C-alpha cells in the first residue's frame, strides 16, 4: 500500500510521488502539490481535520480526504532535512 499525505505525523516530511485521479487533481497540482515536491505535515485543526502541510515553501490547509489523494515517498523521520 503506498503511503498518502494524511498518514504523516506532525513534523514528518516526505516527497510527493503522485496525485490520484479525481476532481481535486488539477487544484492540487496548481497549488504546487506536484511529484518531486517536498511536503511536511506541520499541525492539524481541532479534531484532526483539516491538516496544515508545508508544500515547498508555504503552508497549505487540506482536508483529510484531500490529503488522501497525495501519494508520498517517506523521506525521513524528524523532518528537518
Amino acid at each position, binding site marked *: 500500500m503506498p503511503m498518502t499525505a494524511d498518514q504523516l505525523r506532525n513534523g514528518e*516530511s516526505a516527497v510527493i510521488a503522485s*496525485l490520484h485521479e479525481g*476532481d*481535486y*487533481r*488539477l*487544484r*492540487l*497540482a*496548481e*497549488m*504546487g502539490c*506536484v*511529484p*518531486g515536491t*517536498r511536503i*511536511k505535515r*506541520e*499541525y*492539524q*485543526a*481541532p*479534531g484532526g*481535520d*483539516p491538516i*496544515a502541510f508545508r*508544500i*515547498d*515553501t*508555504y*503552508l*497549505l*490547509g*487540506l*482536508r483529510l480526504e*484531500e490529503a488522501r489523494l497525495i501519494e508520498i515517498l517517506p523521506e525521513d523521520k524528524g*523532518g*528537518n*532535512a
Partner: protein
Amino acid sequence: MRRIALVGNPNCGKTTLFNRLTGLQQHTSNLPGTTVEAHHGKFKLPNETIELIDLPGIYSLFAESDDEKLVVQHLLGEGVEKPDAILLVLDSSNLRRNLLLQQQLQDLGYPTAAVLTMQDSAKRRGLAQDISHLEKQLGLQILGINPRKDRQLAAPISLFLEKLLNAAAPELPPNDTENKLQRFHSGEKIKGLSLETLLRYNRIESILSACQTQEYFGWKSFTLKLDRWFVHPVVGFLAFFAVMMIIFQGVFTLAEGPMTWVEDAFAWASVGVESFLPQHTASGLITDGLLPGLAGVVVFVPQIFILFFLIGLLEDSGYMVRASFITDRLMRKIGLNGRSVIPLVGGFACAIPAMMATRSIRNRSERLATMIVVPLMSCSARLPVYVLLISLAIPAQQFIGPVPAQTLVMTSAYFAGIIVALLIAALFKRFHPSQERSEFILELPAYQRPRLQTVAQQAWMKCKSFLQEAGSVILIISVALWALSTWGPGDSMNQAKIKAEQAAKELECPEDLEPREFQSQLESTFKLEASYAGHIGHAIEPAIEPLGYDWKTGIALISSFAAREVFVGTMSTLFQSSDGNVSGIRARMQKEIDPHTGEPKYGIAYALSLIIFYAFALQCISTMAVMKKETGSWTWPISLFLLYGALAYLGAFIVYRWSIGFLI
C-alpha cells in the same frame, strides 16, 4: 489612456503596491451582472498618465470561482477592454508556485514585466534568487521591490512601466492557451489540464534550479509558533471568541469620542440654522426633517468605520484564514465551509461586502447556504437600533448577576441571530443536499503586521459607499416623513390642538414635567396622530399591535424597510429631537405618555420585542439587490425576505408576550 493590469497570486503584495502607487485616487468597477470588483487608479509616468487595474489574486488562469473568472475576462477582453500590458507581481518567498501563473500568462502574448516582492521573507526561509539570471530565463524584465517598506517606490516603478509600454509586444509562441481558456470558462470540460500543469511545473523546476538557491527546508517561523496557539483545540477557540469580543468592545469604546463630535456638530448646525432662518415651515423642513435624519446616519459612521477597520486588520494579518481552518469541521457538518467564517464575521459589519466575500467558496450549495445566513448576522446598521432601544428601556446601573443588563441584552441579540443562522444552514443542508464535492484547499499565509494605511483606505471606501447609498435613501425618507407628519387631511391638525388642550386639563401632569412642557408634548402627540403619517401608522397598527408596537413605531418600521438604520433617523424625526442625538430621542421617548392612560409608553417588553424583530427581519434593499446579483435571480432574496419577516414577527410576538408575563 493606456492601461496596465496588476496580476498575481493572493497575498503577494499586489494590493499594497497598488495602493501605494495610486493613493486615494481609486474607483471600482463591476462587470455587468456581477459584484466582483476590479480597482482602478491613475498613475503618472514621466510622459503620460496611465490607468492601473488591480485584479483579484489568482493561482491559475484555469480557475472556477467568480473572482478568478474576472481576471480571465479582463485578460481575454470579454465584456471589457483588454489592458495594454501586464505587471506581474511575484512573491519571492513562494516563487515556484507564483511562476505557474507567469508560465500561463506567457501564452497570452501580453507585453509583461514583473516585480519581485517579499525578498526579506524569502531570505528568512533560506531562499535566494539571482534576478538577472531569472530575467534571462523567463524572458522578462524584473524589478525587486518591497511595497511595504521602500520609501521610493513611485519613481523606479514609473520608469520601469514606461519601458514596458514602449517595448515591442513579445513574439507569441504557437499555442492554444487562449482558445482553451475560452472553452474552459464557457463550462467545457478540458482534458489534460492536470498534465499540462505538471509539465509547466517541470519547466519551472528547471528554471529555478538555475537561478534559485534553497539553503534549508525546515524553518522555525514565527507563523508556526503563533499557529501552535491559534489552532489549539482549547486555546484556539477561546482566542477566536476573545478576538470577536475585542472587536465589538473596540467598536463601542473607540467610536464613543467621534460619535459625540458628530452629535455636537449637528446640534450646533441645528441651533445655527434655527437662529439664522425665520420661523417658517421651510426652516422646519431643515431643522425637523433633514438635519435629524442625516444626523441619524452620519453619527454611526465612526462605528462602521471602526468595525470595517478592525475586521480588515484581522484579514490582513492572516488570522481570519486560521479561523476558517479551525471551524471547517463544524461548518462542514451544517453544510457550510471553513471559508464561510470570513463572510459570516464580515456580516457583523455589513451584509453587502459579506455576500461578495462568499465568492471564494467554490461549492455552490455551500456558497448559497452562506449567503442565506449572512443577513442573520447583526450588521452595523442594526447596532444603532439596538443601542437606542436598550438605552431606552434598560437602566445602565441594572445588573443580572455580575453582568450589566444592557450588555446581556446586546449579546443576546447577536447570539439570537447566530443560533438561528446555524439552524437554518443545517435545515438547508438537509433539504438541499449538495451535488458537488466540497473542497477546502486553502493557503495559510504567513502572519504579517497589518498594513494600517491600506486597511484604513479600504474601510474608508466602504464607509463612503455606505454614506452615499444609505445617505440618499435616508434623506428622501426623512423629508417625506417630515411632510407627512407636518400636514394632515382637512382641518384635523387644528382639531388635534384643541383636543390636546382638553386632554391637558383632564390628565394629571407627571411630577418630573413642567405643566407647559407636558401640554406641548401632548399637543405634538395629538398632531402627529392627526397627520398623514399618523393615518398610515394607524392603518397598520392592528397588524403590529400584538408585538407591542404603536402606530409611531409602525411608521419607523415601514421606513426602515429601505434600510434598518433609517429607524433611528425616523424616530428622531418623529420625536423631533433635532440634535440627532441618541440621548435626545431617548429622553423624548421616555417622557412619551400614553394619552389614554398617562403611563410611559415604551417599556422593556416593547424594546425586547423590537430588538428581536430587527435581529431577524431582512430589512435591507441593498442586501437583497446584491443577493440578486450574486444568485442571478430574485427567487432567493424574496423568499428570504418573506421567511425572515415571518420569523421576525413570530420571534417578536413570543418575546413580547413572554416579557409581559415575566418581566412586568
